[in-house]
């Protein structure tokens, strides 16, 4: 068994090495006709860009992706700089007519995204030409290796039951050197994915055939991400199934998040695209889905006929009816731990790191300020977006809606939700985003705290203050602080993962949807002392 596990680890690392190595393979250059087609498709009016791109990338040289990217970006900058100079010149000459004409020649868009588009058309080599083999050596070996590493735990972990042995003695799970390496890898991955997609164009080739078979389109970086997300979740869900095989709540919950990720977040949207419908994830509720009310989305939905309208109505109903009603009956866990994709990754890939979330009072204070600020931010931004949409003006109170949207997209959508949210798993625990950043979690939390039947019940006076519950709470709740007082845990941040109940060695905690009355039960004296004592306390 141990041998299988070790072989699995080596296989996985081999797959990972190939995966990383793939970035550096292949060559990128275009033929003149290919470039011409591209420019025509794009409808560039600049006269310079064609020359510049021809000089840069129509070549026999075997450019690697980094050279290719820098050349492309240079070409765009040269072109844009040229027109910027003209604009400045006409501006100083007060030749407004000529100045105005120059703007149409400027090319907008993120340089690395344009570079990605060009690279995607031009790549040759290992990943682009032998996709099947390349997929096997990267994804394939990774999956096989990971499963070989995980599955022997059925036997190695011993009898079913909570087995957290050695978690704080391992460099993987105790912020040791492996944890830090994982952190660096994940952060780098997200930075590349969000900001330098052209650098990982070779990875995108790996999933091209899958993308074509689903939506009919070649893959982009977000398809790659979606596929990788589902793969990682599936493999790590196997780990969850084995680790918590004695616990039906965990098994059902894992199955549920896996189902919603694969079907709702991945397959349905891709299939919608195949039928020429808008890409839409039916479970992704506003304000987590922060661009739902952005102009481009509303316009796209309105242009898609009855189906677009249905999505529009569903999105609104989901947020203002389904979410609060479900939270009232089941707590926010129905979403955060049973449906949400972010939660899904946190509960599968992130499970080995859950014990690293900080439980200090300080982090609780920070958490409340930050998460509610994000909620306010998203609401203000949405207000701007809707105002802009209905009035057709581009700014509110002198602030451009687009600017606000860009800031949110960069700071919250990319940096917080992606780079920090997942990248920081190994160091700050697996729910950094859900805990500190997610505006939907903040909204669900309000309902859960003030109007819900959900609570974690403390079993009378049975708590021994051992601290397993607090240690393994991914949301950083000091569960023990309540349990040792005999109080139910009613907190807005609780996502109802149920691990506190699972790790409790005394059967003290139970996730429950009970009557609202008596849900919050501050206790003076714990159960166990004679009732007389309580009377005395009450008389005081």
């Amino acid at each position: 068994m141990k041998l299988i596990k070790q072989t699995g680890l080596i296989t996985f690392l081999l797959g990972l090495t190939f995966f990383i190595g793939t970035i550096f393979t292949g060559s990128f250059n275009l033929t003149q006709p290919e470039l011409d087609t591209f420019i025509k498709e794009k409808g560039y009016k600049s006269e310079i860009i064609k020359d510049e791109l021809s000089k840069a990338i129509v070549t026999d040289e075997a450019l690697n992706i980094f050279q290719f990217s820098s050349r492309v970006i240079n070409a765009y900058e040269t072109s844009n700089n040229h027109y910027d100079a003209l604009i400045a010149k006409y501006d100083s000459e007060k030749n407004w007519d000529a100045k105005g004409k120059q703007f149409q020649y400027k090319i907008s868009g993120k340089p690395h995204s344009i570079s990605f588009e060009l690279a995607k058309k031009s790549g040759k080599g290992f990943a682009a030409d032998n996709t099947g083999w390349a997929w096997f050596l990267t994804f394939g070996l990774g999956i096989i290796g990971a499963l070989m590493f995980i599955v022997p735990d059925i036997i190695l972990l011993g009898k079913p039951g909570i087995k957290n042995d050695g978690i704080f003695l391992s460099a993987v799970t105790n912020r040791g050197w492996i944890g830090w390496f994982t952190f660096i890898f994940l952060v780098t991955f997200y930075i590349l994915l969000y900001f330098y997609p052209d650098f990982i164009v070779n990875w995108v080739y790996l999933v091209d055939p899958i993308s074509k078979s689903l939506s009919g389109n070649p893959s982009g970086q977000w398809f790659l991400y979606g596929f990788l997300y589902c793969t990682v979740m599936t493999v790590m869900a196997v780990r969850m199934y084995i680790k918590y095989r004695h616990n039906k709540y965990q098994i059902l919950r894992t199955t549920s998040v896996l189902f919603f990720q694969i079907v709702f977040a991945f397959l349905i949207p891709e299939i919608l695209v195949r039928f020429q419908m808008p890409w839409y994830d039916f479970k992704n509720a506003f304000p987590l889905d922060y661009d739902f009310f952005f102009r481009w989305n509303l316009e796209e939905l309105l242009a898609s006929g009855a189906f677009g309208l249905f999505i529009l109505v569903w999105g609104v109903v989901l947020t203002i009816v389904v979410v609060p009603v479900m939270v009232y009956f089941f707590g926010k866990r129905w979403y955060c731990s049973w449906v949400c994709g972010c939660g899904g990754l946190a509960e599968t890939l992130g499970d080995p790191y859950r014990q690293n979330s900080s439980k200090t009072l300080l982090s609780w204070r920070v958490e409340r300020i930050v998460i509610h600020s994000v909620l306010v931010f998203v609401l203000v931004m949405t207000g701007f977006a809707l105002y802009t949409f209905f009035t057709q003006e581009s700014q509110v109170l002198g602030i451009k809606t687009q600017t606000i949207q860009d800031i949110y997209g960069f700071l919250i959508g990319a940096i917080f939700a992606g780079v920090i949210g997942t990248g920081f798993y190994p160091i700050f625990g697996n729910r950094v985003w859900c805990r500190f950043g997610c505006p939907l979690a903040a909204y669900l939390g309000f309902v859960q705290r003030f109007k819900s039947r959900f609570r974690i019940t403390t079993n009378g006076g049975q708590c021994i203050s051992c601290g397993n519950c607090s240690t393994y709470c991914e949301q950083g709740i000091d569960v023990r602080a309540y349990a040792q007082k005999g109080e139910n845990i009613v907190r807005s941040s609780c996502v109802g993962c149920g691990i506190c109940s699972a790790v409790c060695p005394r059967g003290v905690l139970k996730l429950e949807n009970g009557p609202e009355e008596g849900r919050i039960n501050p206790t003076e004296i714990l159960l166990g002392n004679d009732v007389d004592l309580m009377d005395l306390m009450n008389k005081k």
Partner: protein
Amino acid sequence: MEHIVIIGNGISGVTAARHIRKNSDHKITIVSAETKYFFSRTALMYVYMGHMKFEHTQPYENWFWEKNRISLKEGFVAKVNTDKKQLDFTNGETLSFDRLIIATGSKSNKFGWPGQDLEGTLGMYHKQDLEKLEKYAPDNKTCNRAVIVGGGLIGIELAEMLRSRKIPVTFLVREDSFWNGVLPAQESAMINEHIKEHHIDLRLSTNLKEIKSDENGRVKSIIIEETGEEIPCNVVGLTAGVTPNIDFLKESGIKLGRGVKVNRFLETNIPNIYAIGDCAEQHEAIGQRRNIEAVWYTGRMMGETLAQTICGNKTAYKPGHWFNSAKFLDIEYQTYGWVFSERGKQENEAYFQWQHPTDNKCITISFDKNTKKFLGINTFGIRMRHEVFDKWLTENKSVEYVLEFLADANFDPEFFKLHEAEIVAKFNQENNTNIQLKKKSWKRIFSI
């Protein structure tokens, strides 16, 4: 404002301190030689097993004590001077008090076995025991085998700890079945099996004769009394129960028995000196309880009670219905009310027992043969709701009532398989009754 000094920062002492602070403005000092900050003793095992770090066992952050004006003093009390109302420390320091709370807990029993103090022997009670274990048994290369002597809760926890690092364990138990002085035979047998399934070499009806030393004064092997067999080992865990940790009080004039003698108000024979927790000994037992109860929960309750007295609300220690819990490797155990083992069974006591055919789950309900009054329940592998049993015991419900409403008492996580129907069916069959299981009702549960 008086100066309240508490010796011992375990659950009893700290609970007392917290409740005194809640209800008064007294000056409070907690004295401990073991650690500076309070930690949960019951969680020490998880530190060795790597489930937690030591800091996770501390229920309060380190700033808590200063913020709540509870002074912490590290030091070992050599003597209590009751006349001068002063503590003398081993390093010569002194500390005066207006009232003193003795909450020094227990130490591991040693029964005069030859070699019991050799290097490599340890109990599993203090933080220092954990440090010793890390020293002598960090892995199965340093420690080829460990022997545990004494078949109680601490013994099985120590066995679990060592097994988590793949160290072979021989477990010597004096009784012919694990903990059968406390557990009914059905439960005890199930635990025996479970211990063996975890590759622990369980030796029942086996006593320790002596511990042998190598040339460096370290444990080399042990000899078994019955067979004379020698078992080579590097660590010997002595877990045959605990006794009150009160040696330093011998010349203080405080009346001692096995523990510090206290009345129902937890007062000793000296005014303004009290004892709580494991080290307190009641003059007369309360109900069916023992005079000394080395149980986490009772320590906590005594702390709560004494804090009332100290804050001017003189309160007797009157523990409610007995309850306890433990975990035997993967099997959780809870008990409410009294279920005595066959050995200690009362004359009027009858059992109803149910066991799952394959899983490690079973229950024993004890009831009065004549009146059918429900006396207590042991559950293994099934969680039960404390409030519900507490209420049923107070209201003297019958065993039939308990079975009829058993669904109200289940506390297992959602979606877990429920067994109430099978349990009730078995009871009906054995007792010729026709009890119909009622569906769980929040109304009943919350009408407490």
